[in-house]
């Protein structure tokens, strides 16, 4: 007997908390942290169903999610640092360089 329901609820909760963080945070780095939560929810689901169905491809995609998260974190943080350099802020609602 596997705790499928339990882990699905955990994963849904992680995802919703990530969405909440993306919606409420003003700091761009904090938004990136919330996106990591969302990605973790997805990879938790992949691993759960990989165990349930005995399928190695699902684990491979969890690996891909981790690699994608690494890419996303690097590029995101580079953008944040570039933003900090040009706009002198990391708060997303203070960035209005493109406003006409």
């Amino acid at each position, binding site marked *: 007997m596997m705790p499928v329901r339990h882990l699905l609820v955990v994963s849904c909760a*992680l995802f919703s908390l990530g969405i909440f963080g993306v919606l409420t945070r003003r700091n761009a780095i904090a938004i990136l942290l919330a996106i990591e939560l969302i990605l973790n929810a997805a990879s938790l689901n992949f691993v759960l169903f990989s165990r349930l169905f005995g399928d*190695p491809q699902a684990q491979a995609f969890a690996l891909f999610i981790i690699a994608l998260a690494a890419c996303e974190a690097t590029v995101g*943080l580079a953008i944040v640092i570039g933003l900090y350099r040009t706009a002198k802020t990391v708060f997303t609602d203070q960035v209005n360089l493109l406003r006409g």
Partner: protein
Amino acid sequence: MPSSLIIQIGLWAMTGLVLVSAVLVVVLGNLFRAALSLGLVLVGVAGLFILLEAEFLAFVQILIYVGAILTLVVFAIMLTARLHTPPTRTTVRQQLPASVAALVLFVLLNLATQSLAQSAEPAETRVSLAQLGRELITTLVLPFEVISLLFVAAMVGAIAVASSKAQAPSA
């Protein structure tokens, strides 16, 4: 699966760790503490991976996420730290609508995944690392290569964006 009491205890402990620190990640005003809570979330998810008998993924999770990504995030926080020294108004944006939206999403996701929990008997054999590796170089070789290419592109792009020489002169 090994003795089920230990599994149960570990499951609840890891779940508690993950959920409590995930809440802390999104509500803590101090960004540095939020990043450390994210580390706890990642360790908890790695623990859940171990409980699901995916040890390799748990180690990858700890090595890449906690070891590399979190270090990067902490560095970025320190590099941009000067502006959020008053940590009071970091989370005050549209909190009520956002919590309603997140709650509704949570309920909807739970309803949508309800039927998936029916087949609660796991497969007899766990996925072995050899199987995973064979899958990566046969069926999934194209996604694997695409990810590698993407990774190189992301690294080059990150260096190009963050290097000080590439800055536009007008601030």
